[in-house]
């Protein structure tokens, strides 16, 4: 397939070469001069960047632009990315532009005119269904991990996942998994779709594979092993990055079959009320966010993680609001007491 041509303008030499390496290896595009480019990336923090942008708009008003800046920039006709630049954001912005160019009539358009997988993530509690962003778990580590878990548990063999990144070893008997990376590295790894990682490494002849690891069977699992369920939970939450799995509609009710084991799983504080509400009754992700006054991204992360562990079911009845609570002095007193206990337990 023909590689798209991208120009990088206004960036200092070191930043330029870093971007060039990322664009070439991860995004699989060619970095070319301004004259040949189909898409232009402009570093607005460079000297004379304002003039560069004005000239670009004058000469090629239809060419898609990606603007990088330390400041928050709002340009209607361009994709603006704030520094420090996240590799995932740049890769997604570019992918979105190239997809639009290659497929002028994308399927499943929302009212915002974007396909759901490429929508920007909305953090508001009152997000509408057409503004919710989606992702395909199959593109990320969570699906690979889930597949490897299934294979390991079925065959009862120690399996190793080679991604061209850090090896992951699964010990099915002990229900443990070992990742040779700390939390920070794993979390940033989860930001990228696997195909981008494979692209980075395929030139060295590496591919994503799940294979038996008989050598690991000769030793005890390392002490730094994690529980299989706990790893899959957080990987799915991080893969979600505030988006819903594409097979879960934001306006379709979901319910927790049981509470996730939150004493052993990574979670932000908001996970507790989400768990309580979704365990109590079926509710759509959108309504859950609205009732709890939480960003829909938090609910999406929770739903994604719970779905990865198969803790969700999809009842047909839809709850549209909170439980009716009878206002009485006793109820208010109880709420006040519970709230004070919560505050005390959370160190407030």
């Amino acid at each position, binding site marked *: 397939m023909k590689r798209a041509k991208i120009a990088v303008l206004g960036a200092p030499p070191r930043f330029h070469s870093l971007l060039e390496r990322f664009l070439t290896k991860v995004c699989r595009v060619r970095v070319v001069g301004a004259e040949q480019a189909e898409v232009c990336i402009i570093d607005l923090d460079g000297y004379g960047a304002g003039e560069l942008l004005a000239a670009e708009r004058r000469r090629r008003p239809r060419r898609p632009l990606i603007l990088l800046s330390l400041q928050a920039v709002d340009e209607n006709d361009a994709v603006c990315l704030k520094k420090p630049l996240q590799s995932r954001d740049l890769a997604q912005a570019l992918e979105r532009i190239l997809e639009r160019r290659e497929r002028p009539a994308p399927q499943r358009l929302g009212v915002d005119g974007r396909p759901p997988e490429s929508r920007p993530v909305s953090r508001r509690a009152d997000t509408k269904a057409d503004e919710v962003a989606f992702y395909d778990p199959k593109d990320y580590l969570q699906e690979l991990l889930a597949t490897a878990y299934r294979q390991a548990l079925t065959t009862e063999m120690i399996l190793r996942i080679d991604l061209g990144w850090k090896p992951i070893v699964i010990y099915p008997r002990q229900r443990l998994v070992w990742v040779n990376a700390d939390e920070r590295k794993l979390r940033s790894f989860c930001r990228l779709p696997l195909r981008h990682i494979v692209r980075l490494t395929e030139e060295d002849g590496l591919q994503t594979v799940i294979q038996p690891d008989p050598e690991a069977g000769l030793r005890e699992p390392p002490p730094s092993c994690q529980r299989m369920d706990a790893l899959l939970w957080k990987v799915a939450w991080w893969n979600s990055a505030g988006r819903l799995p594409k097979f879960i509609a934001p306006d379709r009710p979901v319910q927790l079959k049981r509470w996730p084991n939150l004493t052993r799983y990574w979670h932000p*504080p908001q996970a507790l009320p989400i*768990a309580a509400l979704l365990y109590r009754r079926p509710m759509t992700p959108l309504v859950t966010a609205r009732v709890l006054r939480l960003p829909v991204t938090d609910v999406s992360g929770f739903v994604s993680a719970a779905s990865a562990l198969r803790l969700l079911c999809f009842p047909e009845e839809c709850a549209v609001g909170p439980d009716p609570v009878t206002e009485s002095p006793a109820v208010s007193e109880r709420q006040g007491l519970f709230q004070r206990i919560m505050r005390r337990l959370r160190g407030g």
Partner: protein
Amino acid sequence: MTYRKLIFTGPVGAGKTTAIASISDQPPVRTDAAASDLTALRKSATTVALDYGVLHLPDGGKLHLYGTPGQERFDFMWDILTEGGIGLILLIDNDRADPLHDLRRFLHRFQSFIAATGLALGVTCMDLRAHPSLESYHLELVQLGFRAPVLEVDARRRTDVSLLIQALLLHLDPGLSVEGGKV
């Protein structure tokens, strides 16, 4: 000033005394006696009347933490202790001979108190024995007509006990705010 009670119950050795000690703002009051029956096989002393701890609340009120004796021959204390309670923390030791039987026994005994308030189930010693799984406990609860948060707990860890209590409060009222960073 508010004076309310939270009740911890469960079989002998499940970690009630330890859980109260983990969360209490002051050294807990214990009514231990040397174990003389089968309990001696599990631990040297056991609670005979109650364990007591306290959590000071931001408004100057107190949440009293009461632990019931685990042995059934002291069950006359159970009704006395639950009077005025806001909910039940049930701890089950997964390393006992038949933990699901323990669960059924305590659910049956505290049925009316749970119906009037609420329940959170903490399963201890899962590091020693992984089965029954949390899912098995959940299915057992559902079969007996209960719905409750079920979490794995190490009674020595304050964060675990704190999370279990928070789960109980949110189970009773999901609209509670969770501001504040720590668990």
